[in-house]
């Protein structure tokens, strides 16, 4: 069914816009009355389609076809692995026909000598020697027919002719090559319409044929008509090139399969005179999905939601999902002829993965033309490709564009540089076309296979490695030279394959010839090709170019780029390889096998040489790269991860060591190469770092071992000396480290405590007295003996620690004797101190009586000699807490005996009166205590002692212990009174009335609250006794108070007696009277 628009031919410029967009629901378009998609009921109906009158656009096309100038390039060009670009006139080294495993029979009509070509990325390999285009005996109308399109899939080649036939060629074997197995006629004799395009859809087992203006479906591979309907008024059709991909075998390009409710389909876009139609090809039908109204399209290419569309006048980009059009540029750069317009058809081709190519000509085919590459934003994204005339056929084989011109001329341009890289000439009478097909033809290439063979550049020679080498060698044979690009003679005299110079070999050439000036350009090209790589970085070629990119960056010392590459390709770049290059001096410390493409070995070795003296320049790059690797080990393959990480860690350590840097950051992150790091540190005598490393590994004993070695000088390490110029600081830290980390390891603590006590007693003392080591049972006697070397102070402190903290009271005696020794040593060694003490004692003696207590005086004076006072007070304190028989454990002697001997029997007894007092007191010699106090002139304390039978505490710093209270029992009272009387006698001897008076006033010797007569009599006896003690010459007036008080007491007592007597008498009288009255009554 023809539409009106078809008859109008191509629209004028004013009609070029898209008129309307109707999103059509998923319906069977056969039901739509005005649909161009119909069910084809029969072959007769198919034949009937040929009656459709051609539009002017179609006429143009067909006429040009007849005139041998069709634009075959308007057909699709699947995205495919790019072939090769000649590098500055490089000669293609591949010329072995024997490598080719496709049909290789010599072309009888166009012999190789008839073809001239410059060096460049391609050569030709014959595919089919003869295609019988004409079939005059069966189909006379086929006389003069030419090939109008070619498509290939698997072993099939489908050749469409201008006579409306499709010739099905099939490859039998290497010997027979391709033979014709069928030819199917799509036109009847009354109206012949050319086969304009074939789209192969193997996903659904279909083949779409655009014959004239009608699209029909056929079944693969034999071309049985498929009953799915037809689409009419079609100028061109295309698959979505963003969905094109290699099939699982890598043999054919296919498009993606979709499904709806379980029904599978593929998307195809058709361009009609009225609209862009998005249709879905199902197994049993063609269904219209969406119409985007766009007038007079003649060709187009679909990429996702973008359709690059051409009318005869203009190119546009249409966003079919957002219904927007971006006008691009005219198809002719020159002002069009008012009457006829351009005499050529526009061309739209896909380029790589995201661009479109459009050809812009002059007024005629003979005038210069340019290829414009446009991205989906509508921007021209590459420089224009200039041609001397408009190409008759064109295809893109990324990164090349192959154009055919009249007269058998072939021109290959690079999409990177837009420069012509190869020219070929067929005989001038040739009428050739180029076409990219679905089939990928593969050709063996030993040079390529060798270059892509993975081998260990650093070998471990393990059986596994040897086995893998064999496997990789076999795998490398699967790296074939591939091409989907065919060139054919329209008369069927040959079909050849554009055999590309393998891209990896081209890249190798480019690497070799790259200069500082063009290296960035080469890099950019490779990035571009990497992006366009069909199978991405996971493919062998993808990994090869990634490897080459990093090598190229290193070759020209572009570390910024190198860093970007390694960071974005962590998975594909082995850091060991980079280390191998930049650290060429020591490959022994690269662990595991490092595999690389054999074709890159020479480059790598050359780089190693170049980098021999470049360590400083690579420093920042390597540091950052290694840090990135360290932070993300998961980026590497699990089987290699440990070796890689170990290599990195060892490398970082070595770099740090060479630069004499702080190794802590490196060592702190070491996870995989601990053992190796230890070996290196030992080898480099970095004992300090080794010690710290052991610490980070929680190997505390090893850490302490090396630390100790550094302290005692067993090991020397300048780094340690720098960090610890002061040994004490190191010892303090070590002790703290030991106590923090090893407190629960008794043997370790004891071992280090023993060493320290012997060598550095102060630090050993810290260990044995630290709370963290309280669970460790030290041998106290041994500790004390070891501490003796550290001076008496430490020993005393330890003894006090045991006594006060560990509550080991058995050491009290030893504490006392230690303090005593220290005190005496001090006095012996310090004459000034002795003089000061004597002076203080003299000062006290000179005080007027009654004077302050010597205890109080001591408190005031002792600030003058703090050390002595401290020892003195501690000794006094500990003496105050012992019994008479307390023994020293260490000296095995009675403590008080020793004290008596050392103090009381020497001059120091007088110098330390308080100590002497305490010794006497502890020996139970209270009378001597009193006498000593009296001798000292401390009558107040003497009286107090006599009263309480106790000496007071001194010294605030000493923990006060519970002291016994004063005398409470009768014996103590008697003792106390006896002592008081001793004092009183002293007073009397002194004839000091003040003391006597005070004594008599304070001590109430006669005081008695009882009223018992016996008591009073005793008091009187005492009174009499006191009076008798007082010499006759003693002035009575000074006894006035005592006498008045005592006599008054006695008087009161007498009065009380009299009063009581009178009261009783009165009572008696009263009772007698009462008794008398009773009797009287």
């Amino acid at each position, binding site marked *: 069914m023809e539409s009106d628009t078809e008859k109008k031919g191509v629209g004028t410029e004013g009609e*070029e816009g*898209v008129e309307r967009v109707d999103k059509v629901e998923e319906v069977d378009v056969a039901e739509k009355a005005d649909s161009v998609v119909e069910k084809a009921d029969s072959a007769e109906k198919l034949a009937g389609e040929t009656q459709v009158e051609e539009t002017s656009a179609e006429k143009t096309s067909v006429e040009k076809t007849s005139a041998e100038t069709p634009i075959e390039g308007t057909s699709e060009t699947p995205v495919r692995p790019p072939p090769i670009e000649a590098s500055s006139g490089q000669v293609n080294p591949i010329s072995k026909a024997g490598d080719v495993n496709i049909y290789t029979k010599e072309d009888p009509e166009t012999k190789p000598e008839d073809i001239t070509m410059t060096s460049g990325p391609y050569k030709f390999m014959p595919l089919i020697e003869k295609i019988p285009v004409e079939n005059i005996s069966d189909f006379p109308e086929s006389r003069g027919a030419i090939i109008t399109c070619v498509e290939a899939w698997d072993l099939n080649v489908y050749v469409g002719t201008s006579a409306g036939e499709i010739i099905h060629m099939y490859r039998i074997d290497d010997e027979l090559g391709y033979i014709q197995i069928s030819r199917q006629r799509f036109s009847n004799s009354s109206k012949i319409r050319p086969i304009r395009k074939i789209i192969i859809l193997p996903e659904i087992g279909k083949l779409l044929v655009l014959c004239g203006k009608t699209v029909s479906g056929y079944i693969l591979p034999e071309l049985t008509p498929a009953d799915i309907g037809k689409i009419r008024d079609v100028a061109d059709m295309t698959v979505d090139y963003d969905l094109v991909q290699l099939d699982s075998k890598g043999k054919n390009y296919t498009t993606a399969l979709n499904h709806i409710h379980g029904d599978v389909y593929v998307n195809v876009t058709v361009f009609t005179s009225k609209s862009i139609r998005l249709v879905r090809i199902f197994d049993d039908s063609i269904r219209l999905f969406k119409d*985007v109204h766009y007038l007079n399209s003649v060709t187009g290419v679909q990429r996702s939601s973008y359709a690059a569309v051409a009318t005869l006048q203009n190119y546009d980009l249409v966003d079919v999902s957002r219904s927007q059009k*971006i006008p691009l540029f005219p198809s002719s750069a020159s002002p069009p002829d008012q009457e006829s317009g351009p005499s050529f058809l526009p061309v739209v081709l896909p380029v790589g993965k995201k661009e479109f190519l459009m050809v*812009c000509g002059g007024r005629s085919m003979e005038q210069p033309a340019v290829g414009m590459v446009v991205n989906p934003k509508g921007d*021209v994204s590459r420089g224009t490709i200039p041609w001397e005339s408009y190409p008759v056929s064109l295809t893109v084989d990324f990164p090349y564009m192959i154009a055919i011109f009249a007269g058998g001329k072939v021109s290959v341009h690079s999409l990177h540089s837009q420069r012509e890289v190869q020219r070929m000439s067929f005989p001038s009478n040739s009428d050739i076309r180029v076409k990219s097909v679905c089939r990928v033809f593969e050709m063996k290439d030993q040079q390529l296979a060798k270059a892509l063979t993975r081998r260990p550049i650093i070998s471990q020679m393990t059986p596994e490695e040897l086995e893998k080498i064999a496997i990789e060698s076999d795998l490398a044979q699967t790296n074939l030279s591939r091409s989907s690009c065919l060139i054919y003679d329209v008369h069927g005299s040959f079909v050849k394959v554009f055999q590309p110079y393998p891209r990896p070999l081209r890249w190798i050439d480019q690497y070799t010839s790259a200069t500082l*000036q063009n290296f960035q350009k080469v890099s950019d090209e490779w990035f571009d090709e990497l992006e366009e790589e069909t199978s991405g970085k996971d493919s062998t070629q993808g990994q090869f170019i990634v490897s080459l990119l990093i090598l190229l960056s290193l070759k020209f010392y572009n570390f910024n*780029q190198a860093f970007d590459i390694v960071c974005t390709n962590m998975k594909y770049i082995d850091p060991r390889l980079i280390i191998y290059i930049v650290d060429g001096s020591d490959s022994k410390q690269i662990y595991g096998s490092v595999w690389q493409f054999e074709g890159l070995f020479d480059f790598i070795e050359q780089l190693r040489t170049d980098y021999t003296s470049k360590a400083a320049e690579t420093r920042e790059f390597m540091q950052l790269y290694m840090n990135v690797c360290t932070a993300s080990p998961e980026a590497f393959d699990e089987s290699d991860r440990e070796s890689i990480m170990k290599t990195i860690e060892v490398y970082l350590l070595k770099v740090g060591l060479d630069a004499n840097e702080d190794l802590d950051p490196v060592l702190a992150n070491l996870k995989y190469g601990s053992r190796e790091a230890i070996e290196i540190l030992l080898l480099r005598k970095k004992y300090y770092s080794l010690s710290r490393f052991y610490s980070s590994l929680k190997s505390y004993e090893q850490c302490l071992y090396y630390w100790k070695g550094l302290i005692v000088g067993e090991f020397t390490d300048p780094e340690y000396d720098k960090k610890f110029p002061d040994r004490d600081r190191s010892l303090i830290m070590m002790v703290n480290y030991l106590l923090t980390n090893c407190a629960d390891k008794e043997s370790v603590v004891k071992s280090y405590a023993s060493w320290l006590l012997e060598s550095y007693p102060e630090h050993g003392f810290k260990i044995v007295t630290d709370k963290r080591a309280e669970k460790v049972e030290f041998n106290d006697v041994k500790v004390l003996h070891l501490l003796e070397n550290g001076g008496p102070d430490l020993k005393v402190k330890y003894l006090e620690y045991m006594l006060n903290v560990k509550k080991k009271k058995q050491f009290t005696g030893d504490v006392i004797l230690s303090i005593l020794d220290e005190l005496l040593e001090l006095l012996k060694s310090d004459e000034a101190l002795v003089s000061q003490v004597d002076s203080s004692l003299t000062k006290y003696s000179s005080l007027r009586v009654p004077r302050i207590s010597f205890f109080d005086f001591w408190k005031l004076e002792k600030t003058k000699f703090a050390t002595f006072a401290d020892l003195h007070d501690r000794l006094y304190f500990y003496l105050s807490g012992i019994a008479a028989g307390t023994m020293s454990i260490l000296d095995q002697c009675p403590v008080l005996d020793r004290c008596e001997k050392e103090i009381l029997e020497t001059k120091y007894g007088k110098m330390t009166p308080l100590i002497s007092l305490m010794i006497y007191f502890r020996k139970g010699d209270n009378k001597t205590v009193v006498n000593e106090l009296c001798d000292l002139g401390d009558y107040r304390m003497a009286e107090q002692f006599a009263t309480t039978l106790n000496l007071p505490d001194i010294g605030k710093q000493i923990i006060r212990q519970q002291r016994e209270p004063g005398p409470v029992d009768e014996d103590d009272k008697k003792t106390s009174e006896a002592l008081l009387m001793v004092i009183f006698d002293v007073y009397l001897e002194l004839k000091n009335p003040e003391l006597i008076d005070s004594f008599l006033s304070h001590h109430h010797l006669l005081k008695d609250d009882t009223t018992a007569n016996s008591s009073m009599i005793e008091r009187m006896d005492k009174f009499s006794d006191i009076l008798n003690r007082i010499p006759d010459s003693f002035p009575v007036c000074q006894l006035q108070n005592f006498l008045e008080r005592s006599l008054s007491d006695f008087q009161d007592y007498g009065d009380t007696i009299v009063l009581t007597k009178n009261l009783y008498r009165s009572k008696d009288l009263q009772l007698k009277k009462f008794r008398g009255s009773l009797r009287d009554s």
Partner: protein
Amino acid sequence: MSNRRKTILKVIILGDSGVGKTSLMQQFINGKFSQQYKATIGADFLPKDMTIDDKQVTMQIWDTAGQERFQSLGVAFYRGSDCCVLVFDVTNTKSFENLQSWRDEFLIQANIKDPDNFPFVVIGNKIDVEENKRMVSAKKAQALCASLGNLPYFETSAKEAVNVEQAFDVVARCALQQEESLEYSDDYTDAVNIHVDGDNSTCGC
């Protein structure tokens, strides 16, 4: 280590055929000069990495065809430009007189949103010629630049590499300033919405 993705500055060089646009670009990018004249077909571009005030940029310099027959393609190349370099030949009065039309053409075809503030740099090339062959004086050129909005003006010799670096340094700075002033937009600036009411008129613009 910097990120590879740098700011791309698109710079377009316009001017009459034969004024030395390609030579200027080649001299700036490759430091080369060729005596042979070959007309540019369509447009060619070369990238140049530069550092401007510590910022890494890639200048994408588009050298367009000065010949009239390719001028209808201008719109394709002008789109998205950050700076436009207008070149004339100091020995060619006509090329100088055409500067303004090149500027106007650019502003129209490139669909510049803010034409008054779009950066242009004017270059008078071929100053290496003998003085008596010079047809456009510096004063005259400066006067034109002043009248067009105080456009920066440089006199260069692509042949002898005079002032080329300096001129393109200013071009790069102008382009960077322009690029930074533009807000990022995902939409096409000149996209045409497709008409949906069934009316046969072409489009809504």
